[in-house]
């Protein structure tokens, strides 16, 4: 299937034609924040910077039920964990930014390793079709082009949409994406001109990202050399060790598993967790392998820029979305940290 054109005036028709088989999510502004919400027509945003929170919660909710159980001793099956039902409905997510889609691709390699696959992550991934929206105007905090990504990056997406003004160019990238476009109404074939215009927008957007960081030296150096570098003694000084950067990050994926009991029923729930927390690594014995702010701050950056690339075919655990830069209460700028690591 070739590239297609969707007129913005036909967006509602496009969305409606998918509703029979899919739930459709798109960026919507609520309480000053743009986030994904279910839509049933064309009433959503195409002109936004990025969603406030990373969309990782679409596949990895902040709190997610894994199992349920009875704690009633009279129940024959008491204390035996039962699957809580993991049958996500098919979804189309429209307007996801390429950096966030790239993050899903990185996380695919983490939730699925050489031995295990996380069923909660992959069942939702498989049931979801991602229609990305290229960034014509990247934000001042974007640095995707420095970390194997870019404003029109296609990895992780099923379809890439490019905003051409009055219309969108839709480029199918996977079988899943083609299937959705075949079902959708309101599309016409794209001509060469549209493709050229998209290419020009891409070049312009890439040019607009002026702040580059480099990771070539990090790739060369050994774990211990990076780990023992002197700059870590200063980075953590201002850090509050709150979890903001990890919770808004599209690739941060650490979680905790907790049992919650209410009366005679209980649930095993997994929740986002953060390596910034003192409790995160705390042993039952009282020993803590990462006892201070320095160790915890270093872990986060080392994990993203050294450990993940080392173990996952060079993928960097950061996609340059800039959310942590915008939301860190004490302005710890990941670009500066990486510059120090690479120096």
């Amino acid at each position, binding site marked *: 299937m070739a590239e297609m054109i969707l007129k913005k005036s036909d967006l509602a028709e496009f969305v409606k034609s998918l509703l029979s088989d899919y739930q459709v999510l798109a960026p919507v502004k609520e309480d000053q924040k743009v986030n994904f919400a279910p839509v049933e027509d064309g009433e959503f945003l195409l002109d936004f910077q990025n969603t406030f929170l990373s969309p990782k919660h679409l596949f990895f909710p902040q709190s997610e039920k894994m199992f349920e159980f009875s704690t009633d001793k009279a129940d024959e099956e008491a204390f035996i964990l039962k699957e809580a039902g993991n049958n996500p409905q098919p979804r189309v997510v429209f307007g996801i930014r390429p950096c966030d889609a790239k993050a899903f691709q990185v996380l695919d390699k983490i939730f699925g390793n050489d031995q295990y696959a996380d069923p909660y992550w992959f069942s939702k991934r498989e049931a979801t079709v991602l229609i990305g929206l290229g960034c014509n105007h990247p934000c001042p905090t974007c640095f995707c082009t420095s970390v194997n990504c870019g404003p029109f990056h296609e990895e992780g997406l099923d379809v890439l949409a490019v905003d051409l003004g009055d219309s969108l160019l839709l480029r199918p990238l996977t079988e899943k994406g083609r299937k959705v476009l075949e079902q959708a109404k309101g599309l016409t074939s794209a001509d060469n001109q549209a493709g050229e215009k998209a290419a020009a927008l891409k070049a312009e957007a890439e040019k607009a990202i002026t702040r580059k960081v480099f990771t070539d030296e990090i790739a060369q150096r050994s774990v211990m050399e990076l780990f023992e570098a002197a700059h870590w003694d200063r980075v953590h000084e201002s850090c509050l060790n709150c979890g903001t950067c990890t919770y808004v990050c599209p690739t941060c994926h650490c979680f905790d598993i907790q049992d919650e009991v209410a009366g005679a029923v209980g649930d095993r729930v997994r929740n986002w967790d953060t390596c910034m927390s003192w409790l995160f690594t705390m042993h039952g014995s009282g020993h803590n392998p990462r006892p201070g702010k320095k160790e915890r701050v270093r872990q986060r950056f080392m994990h993203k820029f050294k450990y993940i690339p080392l173990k996952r075919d060079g993928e960097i655990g950061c996609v340059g979305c800039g959310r942590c830069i915008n939301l860190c*209460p004490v302005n710890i*700028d990941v670009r500066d940290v990486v510059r120090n690591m690479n120096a």
Partner: protein
Amino acid sequence: METRTEKIRETAKRLLSEGKVDVVIGYRAGTIPLRTAPYFARTVEEAENLIWNSHCRINLANFLPRRKDRVAVTAKGCDARNIVNHIIENQITRDQVYIIGVPCEGMVELDLILEKEGRPIQEIIESNGKLTLKGRDFSTSLERAEVLRQNCLTCAHRNPTVYDELVVDQVPELEGVDRYVDLKELLAQSDAERYAYFQNLVKDCIRCYACRDACPLCYCHVCFVDETMPQWLGKSIDPADVMTYHLLRAFHCAGRCTDCGACEAACPMGIKVRQFTRLLEKDVKELYGYETGLSLEARPPLTVYRPDDPQEFIK
């Protein structure tokens, strides 16, 4: 603001070169507009990076507990009050800390500016009470006074209460401000309305604990949220657990809070978490006549009592 920056650098350089302190804790310019970062200047050269502007929202007293070195801190009225509170609570000694007092005319509210100006801001210039915001293809300006933080608009102690030196002359204190006018309206509502108000207030909470971590009062080695035996609250984003967290956090600040607003400044979700602490701050002032950090001699209200303290609610 320029004068303050100059004077802070001057003072910091003098203190460092004379060996009076090991480190000067102040702010450096943010890497993006509208932000600053806490900065630890250890040399005369590093002191050149210190600045002062309208975005010094984080409370630097937060970095004092458990320090062993001698420190100088740039302190607004609220920061100074928190330093006093730390001294009273034996978190640092008076001799150890050199307070560089910075009389303050309020800090601006980041969320409010971002709300007023929806487009990405690439540069900000501040002069004569005006903020000029520049973006990709625009330039607008805002009055500083229009975008001050709510706690700054009702601030009762803009001048440091205790200090070793002031970088500029004292500024006039605000007069005739009712700090609690909105709370009084809220408290006049029914319990169901108040319940709905506070539930709605924290509905976006992601439990990152930035409000706790930005708060100078939260220096416990093990916070109640991290206690496991017993576990006082669940870790999911369940409404009951979220509310329990906010109530206990606020209660732990009772009689200690200066309403510095660091908690709100740190909250990534823009939750007005001060609404909880202000309820207690108001009660402490009205019932026990205490305001935190005004003097080194006053005892905190929960460490003392009067035989005739109010007790109408007790049967």
